[in-house]
C-alpha cells in the first residue's frame, strides 16, 4: 500500500534552508501584532528532499497519461502532447513574466496571444476571440454570459431559457443554470441528431439560445445545421457552439460558416496541450462581429508597431478571470498550431475521423453500435449484447480494458444511449495501436461470453482493484487526519 506523505513525516527531517534576510531582525509581535499570528507549529509534512522526490515519483508510477499509451476517452481528445510545446511554455522569457509588467516588456507574449486569437478566428470562422477563459466550461460560461448581455442590451429581457440537446455535455445545462437561465432539453431524433420538430416547438420569445456540439456527442455531424441556425435566429435566439469536438472538422468546416454566433474551443483537446490530470485547460471564446463589443476585457490589439491591452469596451461583460487567461497553455497551443500549419491541422482532423471510423468498423461485429453510419472523430458503441446475454456492463468492459493496459473510453455518456462506450481514437494513434485495441476489445467480448465473472471482477492487474465509491460518498474522508490509522 502506498503511504501518504504525512505518514512519512519525521520531525526535523526537512533540511531546506532559506538564507536569512541581511536586514535587522523584526519582532513580529510588534510589526504584525500578537492577535494576528498563528498559534503553534504549521502541521505540514516534514520530509527530506530525497523522500519528497521518491514519494512523487512513486505517485507518478501509479498514474496513466497519453505518454503511457492509448487513451480513447470520448469527448476528451487525448492526443499526443508534443514535447516542443512543453519546452516553449517553460522558456524563462515566457514563464517568468509578471502580468502587470510594463507593456513594452511583454511584447513577445502579447504577440503570441494576438496571433493565437487570429488563428482561432481563421480555424473556426469567427471574427474575434478572447483567450481569457480558463477551461472549456469557463468558456461556455463566458459565452452564455454574452448571450445574456446581448439580449439585455437589446432590452429583450423576457428570454429566460436556454435550449440544450438531450445528448449534450453536462457542462451545457450546468452552465446555463449558473448564468441564471432555465434549461429545456431538445430531443434527439432516431438518427441521433437534433429533432427539428421538437426544436421548433420549443423555440419562442422566451428562448435566449441553443447550445450545440457539432459533431455531436454521438460523433455525428448535425447535417441540418443550417436549418437549425435559421430556426434559432428567426426566433430571436443565438446559437452557441461547444467546441469540445472541433478536432473532427479543422480545415473541413467551420462553426462560423454554420451560423454559430459564439464558440468556445478547448486548447487542451483540439490543440494538443496536456490535460494535467484535470487541468489547467484553456477555453478561448470567439464571436461574430455583432457580439465583439461584449467580449471580456482586456483585449490584445495592435496599435502601431506595438500590442496593447485594451480595456475600453463599455459593453464588455467584464472579466471572467484575473489577468489574461492561462497564458502557459496558450503558448503550447500557439506552438502546436505553428508546428502543424493549416494543412497539418486539416490532416489531423482527417486522420482522427479515419481512426474513429476504422475502429467502429472493426468493432461492429462484437459490439452494438446504435448509430452505425459515417461518424466523425468519435463514435458510441455499447455493451448491449454483453449486457443482454451475460449481464456484463459497459463499466465491466472499461475495467477489463485496464488489464490490457488501455485507458478505457468514456462510459455511460451520452445519457441517451444505454451502456454507452464512447470511443475517440485521436489522429496520433497508429493503425497497429488501433488493431491491438480492437483485438483487446474482441477478447473482452469473448470473455464476456465464456467467462463473464472474469470481466465482472476486472481489473485484476492494477495497483488497486475496484474501489468502493458508495462508501467514499456516504462516509466522506476527504483529508488525512493525524489520528487516522495508516
Amino acid at each position, binding site marked *: 500500500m502506498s503511504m501518504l*506523505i504525512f505518514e512519512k513525516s519525521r520531525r526535523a527531517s526537512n533540511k531546506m534552508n532559506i538564507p536569512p534576510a541581511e*536586514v535587522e531582525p523584526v519582532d513580529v509581535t510588534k510589526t504584525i501584532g500578537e492577535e494576528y499570528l498563528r498559534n503553534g507549529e504549521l502541521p505540514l509534512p516534514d520530509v527530506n528532499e530525497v523522500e519528497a522526490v521518491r514519494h512523487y515519483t512513486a505517485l507518478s508510477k501509479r498514474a496513466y497519461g497519453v505518454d503511457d499509451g492509448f487513451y480513447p476517452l470520448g469527448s476528451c481528445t487525448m492526443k499526443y*502532447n508534443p514535447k516542443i510545446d512543453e519546452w516553449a511554455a517553460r522558456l524563462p522569457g515566457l514563464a517568468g513574466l509578471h502580468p502587470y509588467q510594463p507593456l513594452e516588456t511583454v*511584447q513577445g507574449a502579447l504577440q503570441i496571444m494576438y496571433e493565437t486569437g487570429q488563428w482561432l478566428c481563421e*480555424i473556426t470562422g469567427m471574427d474575434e476571440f478572447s483567450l481569457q477563459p480558463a477551461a472549456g466550461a469557463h468558456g461556455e460560461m463566458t459565452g452564455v454570459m454574452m448571450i445574456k448581455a446581448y439580449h439585455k442590451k437589446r432590452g429583450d429581457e423576457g428570454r429566460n431559457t436556454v435550449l440544450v440537446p438531450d445528448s449534450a455535455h453536462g457542462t451545457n445545462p450546468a452552465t446555463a443554470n449558473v448564468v*441564471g437561465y432555465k434549461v429545456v432539453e431538445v430531443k434527439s431524433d432516431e438518427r441521433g441528431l437534433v429533432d427539428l420538430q421538437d426544436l421548433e416547438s420549443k423555440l419562442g420569445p422566451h428562448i435566449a439560445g441553443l447550445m450545440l456540439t457539432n459533431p455531436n456527442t454521438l460523433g455525428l455531424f448535425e447535417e441540418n445545421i443550417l436549418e437549425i441556425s435559421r430556426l434559432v435566429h428567426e426566433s430571436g435566439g443565438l446559437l452557441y457552439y461547444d467546441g469540445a469536438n472541433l478536432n473532427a472538422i479543422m480545415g473541413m468546416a467551420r462553426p462560423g460558416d454554420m451560423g454559430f454566433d459564439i464558440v468556445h474551443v478547448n486548447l487542451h483537446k483540439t490543440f494538443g496541450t496536456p490535460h494535467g490530470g*484535470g487541468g489547467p485547460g484553456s477555453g478561448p471564446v470567439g464571436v461574430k462581429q455583432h457580439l465583439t463589443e461584449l467580449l471580456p476585457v482586456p483585449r490584445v490589439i495592435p496599435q502601431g508597431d506595438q500590442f496593447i491591452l485594451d480595456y475600453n469596451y463599455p459593453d464588455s461583460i467584464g472579466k471572467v478571470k484575473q489577468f489574461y487567461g492561462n497564458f502557459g497553455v496558450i503558448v503550447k497551443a500557439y506552438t502546436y498550431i505553428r508546428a502543424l500549419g493549416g494543412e497539418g*491541422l486539416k490532416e489531423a482532423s482527417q*486522420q482522427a475521423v479515419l481512426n474513429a471510423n476504422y475502429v467502429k468498423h472493426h468493432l461492429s461485429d462484437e459490439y452494438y453500435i446504435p448509430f452505425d453510419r*459515417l461518424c466523425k472523430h468519435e463514435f458510441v458503441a455499447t455493451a448491449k449484447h454483453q449486457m443482454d446475454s451475460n449481464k456484463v456492463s459497459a463499466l465491466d468492459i472499461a475495467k477489463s480494458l485496464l488489464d490490457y493496459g488501455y485507458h478505457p473510453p468514456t462510459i455511460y455518456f451520452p445519457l441517451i444511449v444505454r451502456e454507452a462506450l464512447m470511443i475517440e481514437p485521436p489522429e496520433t494513434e497508429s493503425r497497429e495501436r488501433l488493431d491491438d485495441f480492437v483485438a483487446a476489445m474482441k477478447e473482452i467480448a469473448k470473455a464476456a461470453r465464456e467467462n463473464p465473472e472474469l470481466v465482472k471482477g476486472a481489473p485484476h492487474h492494477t495497483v488497486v482493484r475496484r474501489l468502493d465509491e458508495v462508501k467514499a460518498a456516504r462516509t466522506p474522508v476527504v483529508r488525512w487526519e493525524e489520528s487516522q490509522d495508516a
Partner: protein
Amino acid sequence: MRFTPNTDAVVQEMLESLGLQHIEELFEDIPDEVKMDRPLDLPPEMSEIELKSLLTALAARNVPAADHPCFLGAGAYDSYIPAALEQLLLRSEFYTSYTPYQPEISQGILQGIFEYQTMICQLTEMDVSNASLYDGATALAEACTLAAVHTRKKLVVVPETVHPEYKQVLETYALSGHFEPVFVPCPNGIMDLNAVSDLAKNQAAALVVQHPNFFGHLEPVGAAADLIHEAGGLLIMAVDPLSLAILKPPGAWGADIAVGEGQPLGNPLSFGGPYLGFMAVTRPLMRKIPGRIVGQTTDLEDRRGFVLTLQAREQHIRREKAGSNICSNQALNALAAAIYLTLMGPRGLKQIALRCHQLAVYAQKRLEEAGFPLLYNQPFFREFAVKTPDAGSINRRLQEQGIIGGLEIEGGMLLAFTEKRSRQDIDRLVAAFKGE
C-alpha cells in the same frame, strides 16, 4: 512537424478496409454549403528547429520579471521555485493524464489531490478543501455563489480593499443573478467596520475579507467575523497562502469559506496563468463546495484507495441543477502547490514568510526615511503601498536600471517583497525613489 504516425499507404489501406477511396469521403455528411472550399489561411508548417528559433525570438522580446529584481505583486508573486519541483512536474504520467475518472489506474493523481486537499486544510485550518478552482478571483466568485445558495440571501458585502480584479470578476459573475456584490468604500486602506456593519445587517449572505488585503494590510478580521455572523451571514476570507505560515489562519478566525490564489506555492508567474484557486470550507458546507473532491475508500481486497467523490454536486450528474459548472480545474498547478509545500516543509515555509516580512519592513523604513510614507498607515505582511505622486517616473527610472518596479495605483505605488529580493535590491529601489 506532424504527429500522425500513419503513412499515406497505411491511410489508403485503412480507407479501403472501409470500402472508401478518398479521405474526403469521410466528410460526405457535411453539407456542401458549410464545407470549406479553400485551405486554412495559417502560417505554413514548421520544423522543430524552426519552432525553437521562433519561440526563442518571441521570448527574447520580453523582459522576464523572474530574472530581474521585481517589486510587482498584487496577486502574482515572483517566488522561488525549487529545482526538484520543476523536475517532478516533468513526469509525464502527471501532466499527460486526464481527470482521474478511472481510479484503478489513477491512484497517483488521486492520492496527490488528496494530499493537496489535506495541506490546504492544514494551512487554512478549515475542514474540507476541493481539488482547486481556476484562480483566486474565480474561487472568490464561486464562494459568493455558495454563500448565497446556502443562506438563501443574495447580498455579498465586499470592502473596496479587495483586489480590483477580484471585484471585476465578482461583478461579471453577478450577471447570473445568484448573488449581488455591494462594494464598501474604505478610505483608510482597511475595511470600514461601521459601513460594513450597516450593510451586513441588511440581509447579507456573506462578508468578503481579503487578508492581507489588496494594499498588503491586515484587516480587522475578528470584528468582521463577529459582525457578519451576528447578521446571519457567512465569513468568506481570501488569503495569501504563504502568509498562513505566520498569520492566524481563516479557520481560527471563524471563517466559513477560505479561498485564495495558490500561485505563490511553486507556480511560475507565466504572465498571469495558469495558476490555481483554492477553496476550503467548514464541514457543514462540504456537500455544497464546487469542483472535484477526492475521498478515501477501500478496494475489493480492503486496501486503501482514492476516488473522485461527492459527485452528486457536480455538472455531469446534476446537469441543470448543478451549483457550479466547473469540470477541468487546475490539477497540475495544485499538484505543484502540494509538491512545493512538501519540499519547503513547515520550517521552510515559515522562514520564507518571515524573510518576506523582514524585507518588507526594512524597505518600508528606508522609504519612509526617504520621504515616502505608507499610503495607509496600517500593519502589513509582505506588501504595502507608499505615497508618491510620481510612481510612473520612478518606475521608468527603475526600468532603466533593469529593475521592475511596483504597481502604479491611485496616489502611490504598491510594492511586494518575495524571498528572492535582497537588501541590495531594496537599497537600489530606495535610491530610485530618491531620484538616483
